[in-house]
């Protein structure tokens, strides 16, 4: 550890530089010792595979970003692997299992919502806080203005002690960050 002009430093500063140097050396040796152990015991043996995955990922992003590549065309007009094409709105017709009417597939959900009495107006509550809207992706669609699943219900997600989800410890769904 040498300062820009050691002779001009007071003995006090020299001493503190010296101690700092000792501490720094000690920390460096600590880290080296730790890494040495990890390496010798083979605890990091996946390093190569990880680097390979990173490389592939970078390559992939470059390739996909390249406009000259036949990118994803609007997939609503392509032919699927079975040689079929489909209209943007599914036009299969079947019977509603609630009321028996014939409904077109692409309009089934909005119909069912009203049919089952789960209309948005019925369930709309004033948004209590912004946290209500956060935990999901709401669905707006150019085709229909309805969204079947109302917003504020996601507050229930926070307080809902669903057995399948681990406790709030790992913040699943918890939106308020400490």
């Amino acid at each position, binding site marked *: 550890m040498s300062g820009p002009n050691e002779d001009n430093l007071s003995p006090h500063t020299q001493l503190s530089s010296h101690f700092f140097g*000792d501490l720094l*050396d*000690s920390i460096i*040796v*600590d880290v080296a*010792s*730790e890494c040495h*152990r990890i390496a*010798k*015991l*083979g*605890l990091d*043996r996946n390093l190569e*595979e*990880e680097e390979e995955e990173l490389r*592939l*990922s970078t390559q*992939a*992003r470059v390739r*996909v*970003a390249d406009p000259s590549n036949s990118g994803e065309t609007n*997939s609503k007009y*392509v032919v*699927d*692997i*079975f040689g*079929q094409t489909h209209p943007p709105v*599914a036009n*299969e017709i079947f019977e*509603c*299992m609630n009321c028996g009417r014939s409904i077109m*597939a692409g*309009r*089934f*959900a909005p119909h*069912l919502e009203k049919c089952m009495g*789960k209309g948005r107006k019925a369930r709309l509550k004033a948004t209590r*806080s*912004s*946290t209500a809207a*956060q*935990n*999901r*992706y*709401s669905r707006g669609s150019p085709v229909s203005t*309805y969204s*079947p699943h109302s917003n504020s219900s*996601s507050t229930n*997600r926070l307080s*809902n002690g*669903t057995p*399948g989800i*681990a*406790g709030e*410890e*790992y*913040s*699943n*769904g918890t*939106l308020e960050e400490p």
Partner: protein
Amino acid sequence: MATNNPLYTNPNLCKHLAEYKLRHTLTGYTSFKNCLKTTGNGRTSICRSETKIPRCCSCNGYQGRFFMCLVCSSISCSSHALLHAQSETGHDVAVDIERSELYCCLCSDQVYDPDFDKVVVSKHMMDMPNNTHVDDGIRRSSKRRKLNSLMDLDLKKCKQLFLMRDRREKSCYPLGLRGLNNLGNTCFMNSVLQVLLYAPPFRNYFLSGRHDRETCKKRSSDRLCLACNIDVIFSAVYSGDRTPYSPAQFLYSWWQHSANLASYEQQDAHEFFISVLDGIHEREGNGRTPTKDNGDCQCIAHRVFSGMLRSDVICMTCGFTSTTYDPCLDISLNMNTSNLSSVDGANKSVRPNESSSRCTLSACLDLFTRPEKLGSDQKLYCQNCKEKRDSFKQMSIRRLPLVLSLHIKRFEHSALRKMSKKIDWHLQFPFSLDMTSYLSSSIVRNRFGNRIFTFESNEADTSAEFEIFAVITHSGMLESGHYVTYLRLRNQWYKCDDAWITEVDEAVVRASQCYMIFYVQKMLYHKANEDWSCTPMSPLSDPFCPIAGCC
């Protein structure tokens, strides 16, 4: 300690250490035990005397690293350690007194010995009673048994499906691949259904007819069980008909269920995923196992997707640890936004050289398992210190599920501005994932300086190696977006965009914006690929040919 998946390589002793051990056996190590000083954070140092500062026996210096000879306990600094070893025969090995690491002066290298580590760890155990959660053996779920039974494919039932196959079927595509019609903003549902249709143990269960709709209906006349509806979808999708299927009946059934499940009305694929698994559990699990411990629940949802998380709260002063276990169906990960510069969400340009600003799945997993200091307002009462202390919390995975579902939390909110936005950054994820370093055994061991010691009952019967089989991506904004699923079948990726199934290159998947990633245990992945090789069909031959040795 024998494992079929060794968590570490057993190190070779250098010849000097080997000679030392021959001559002194383990008494040399154990005599050190009294000088070992442990601290709450897993550090072990050697302290002979409380009052004297260690000084080098050769130069009398007090600076630098010190090594204490294993034989005569004389202390040398790093410059003179070799001198000591050369001047006295047999005094080759020393101990670094700062870290209690063995150091061979003649090899000039740090060396390792499991027996020494054992002594160090036992000192830690002695100093800290009730530290590690002793739970071994109690929860040793017979994973092997589960594994085999779940992967068993009872093909008698499947034969029915195959015979019903439509002649129009393109015979060279994987079985069961079929588009799902969007019923009106239901792509969140379609995307998850496609994953369930292909999750290997889950799929095998339903295709083997293990959920019998007839007996199920008889048992409970009140409502259609969600699993029955899923069974219907399986039959439809694997029937051979390739025209897109409308999961209308399922939607109806799920809405009937979701009304009861604390009014879940979701548009989020992840919420839907959890809701479906809970719905299956509710019917299947409750009937048989009234235990509240979902880890041992036998319903198909838990057998396939359920794992166990471990949460430790550690006192920073003495190291006393309080441990709890919680079952989980998936793991939600925060994106590590710390080392990313102010990247605007709209700026999606690819900067391949800036690997340091890359967001990766392993970084997110590191974040998940990293020790997190609890705020000073959250001081916990330490039973050892008998007062409130600063502590830190650390998560780890006690038991991995067969199918590992990872959920990336891409929403971000600002409490100040009361608005939320989506994090659009690309997340790199591997196709092969090794979860070893996130297991509780690894995390706990790391806390004790990575000593060679088995800290947890061996979860070695479950492998930690996974292969990806599905990705659910979200594109668009928080307010309006679209879900698409990518499935990997026999190393070919397929894009399932509602009714459209297309083949895509793996680069597309790697570059996509993942929202949920699904991995299955490597062994199951390869077995699944074997079982379901496509069989070219001719109308004359039996469409069902015995699986053993097929393709």
